């Protein structure tokens, strides 16, 4: 598998949006593998609520771009059976909040069937859709929930943040034999970035964090929409002579402990920036790992910065109040350096 080189100067790079890059991955993989099919509401002729399948219906037809009734539990359970019998479903659930109607199917069936069958059945299913706070989406369209799934044996959980990763990680998801929760933060969907040429056929492996900004004084592990904000905050702090290393976790499960530990060994300080809730969340997990495996490297207690522990409100003023700002991240970085 190809490891991503995020800042290299490579030939043939194109500027694509996140959604276009992910759609390109889906298209390429559907072309390669006739057993891939997509289900969801409005993913056929309409091309998806978020344009995830735009143009694919014309190319692959209704059996492979299957518009469904509004039956999240039903089609996720159905795709479980499909994945057990030789095909490779992609569930386009729009918002992860909706897929919660199928929580039992995901937890009791999808995550456990490889195990229960003693490895005689595979579960190559991709569950994809939006997460995250933004756009006054309010409480039923803003959930993150990824630690819940990372808690369970059997799942792969990824939160790509760049167009290149969206493409490369979706391709990885569509070639593996495990169930993958592929989560796209809604504020990143239109973000643009460089994507290698089609011929590169780049697969970005799970379980690798990406260093978005190298630094020596402290480590920030960020997730989803917090990555870019953390990089911006780090740039600002750089003007004061403090160099923060920003890691994009991007693969929630499996988690790249190695890169985190190596960075902490270098910097001695760690802040986890996560829009999702603090209790039992990724910050708790990362901090426990660092405490267990790199306690002696730490020059300060591990810090966590999370979104407010509340259902997400609607009004822009209220929504802002629960979202992490660049200023808050900057302040948390300063606090960490002051420890």
């Amino acid at each position: 598998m190809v490891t991503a080189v995020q800042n290299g100067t490579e030939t043939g790079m194109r500027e694509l949006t996140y959604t276009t890059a992910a759609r390109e991955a889906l298209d390429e993989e559907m072309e390669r593998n006739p057993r891939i099919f997509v289900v969801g509401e409005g993913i056929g002729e309409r091309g998806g609520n978020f344009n995830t399948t735009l143009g694919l219906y014309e190319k692959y037809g209704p059996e492979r771009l299957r518009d469904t009734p509004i039956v999240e539990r039903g089609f996720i359970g159905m795709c479980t059976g499909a994945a057990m019998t030789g095909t490779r479903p992609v569930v386009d659930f729009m918002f992860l909040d909706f897929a919660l109607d199928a929580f039992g199917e995901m937890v009791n069936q999808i995550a456990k069937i490889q195990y229960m069958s003693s490895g005689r059945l595979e579960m190559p299913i991709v569950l994809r859709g939006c997460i995250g706070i933004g756009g006054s989406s309010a409480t039923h369209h803003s959930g993150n929930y990824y630690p819940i799934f990372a808690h369970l044996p059997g799942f792969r959980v990824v939160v790509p943040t760049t167009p290149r990763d969206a493409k490369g990680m979706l391709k990885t998801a569509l070639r593996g034999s495990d169930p993958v929760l592929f989560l796209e933060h809604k504020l990143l969907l239109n973000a643009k970035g460089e994507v290698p040429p089609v011929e590169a056929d780049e697969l970005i492996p799970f379980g690798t964090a990406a260093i978005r900004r190298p630094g020596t004084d402290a480590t920030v592990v960020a997730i989803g929409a917090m990555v870019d904000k953390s990089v911006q905050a780090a740039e600002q702090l750089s003007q004061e002579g403090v160099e923060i290393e920003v890691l994009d976790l991007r693969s929630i499960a499996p988690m790249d402990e190695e890169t985190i530990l190596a960075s902490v060994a270098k910097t001695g300080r760690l802040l986890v920036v996560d829009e999702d809730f603090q209790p039992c969340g990724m910050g708790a997990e990362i901090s426990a790992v660092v405490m267990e495996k790199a306690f002696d490297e730490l020059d300060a207690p591990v810090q966590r910065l999370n979104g407010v522990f509340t259902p997400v409100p609607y009004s822009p003023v209220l929504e802002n109040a629960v979202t992490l700002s660049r200023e808050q991240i900057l302040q948390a970085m300063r606090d960490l350096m002051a420890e």
Partner: protein
Amino acid sequence: MSVVTGGGLDLTTEQALWLLREMLRIRRVEEALARSYAQGLIPGACHTYVGQEAIAVGVCAHLRSDDVVFSTHRGHGHALAKGAPAREVMAELFGKATGVSKGRGGSMHLFVPEVGLMGTTGIVGPNILQATGAGYSFQLMKTDQVSVAFFGDGAVNNGAFHEGVNMAAIWALPVVFVCENNQFATEVPFDYATRNTDVAERARAYGIPGVTVDGNDVLAVSEAAQAAVERARSGGGPSLVEGRTYRTRPHAEGMRDGGYRTVEEIDAWKQRDPIADLEVRLLDRGIATQEQIDAVRQEIEEVVADGLEFAKTSPYPEPDTAALHIYGAS
């Protein structure tokens, strides 16, 4: 809804003895498991299929080994009728390494995909959706395989039934939905759980055929299943088959069996034993002789004795296999 009697079935001796053999295999395996449970040899749950054998056997009689079955918590019968080896099913309940799920499953997690048994399950409902999904696979891959969901009366009020049957109907998937209406979900009577106890009638709500059969008459089940399987295999879409039956043992071994039904009712249903019924009819019609029936009985005694011995003497799994197979190879 029409009621099929099974009277018109032209059976060869070979087919008839297969039906008998499979029903007996299930019955005797279940009885052996029940005894083993009482002896403390089965560490977990054990829901037997005693009394309901005609349904699994009548349906599986029409399935190929590459057809698939998605079963329930009461799934030993489905596993056996689909071709799972008795000894490996028994070993699984004993928690042994030689069990169909290498000891990680038990009664409610039997997986033998090699013969199309895609799992028994500890959760009521999801298997209906999964069977629908297998139908989706077969349609997409353009094979002529058929997928079957077995489920109890308890499952038909669950959303999975509605969602699964509806999806199979709108996409004309090759699925047969088989409801084993044994009239109770644990201790809850079906007529408590629904205003309309005619399950097959629900098919009309989804625009698919529905038929009620005497679930203790293997020939009736077989006739209805044949039509449903052929319909599915030839691209005609799904059907719903309801078999009216009764479990003559408690919901699970070790549980009480009073308070919610009477001894008289249980005895009356024991009189309607699907196995004895088939034997009588085969003899009456001259399809099989007493010697042939006795030979089947003898054969099954040996299969069960062998299975029990195998289950008892097989090793337990190595503890370090407990966390294998959580993820796939890639």
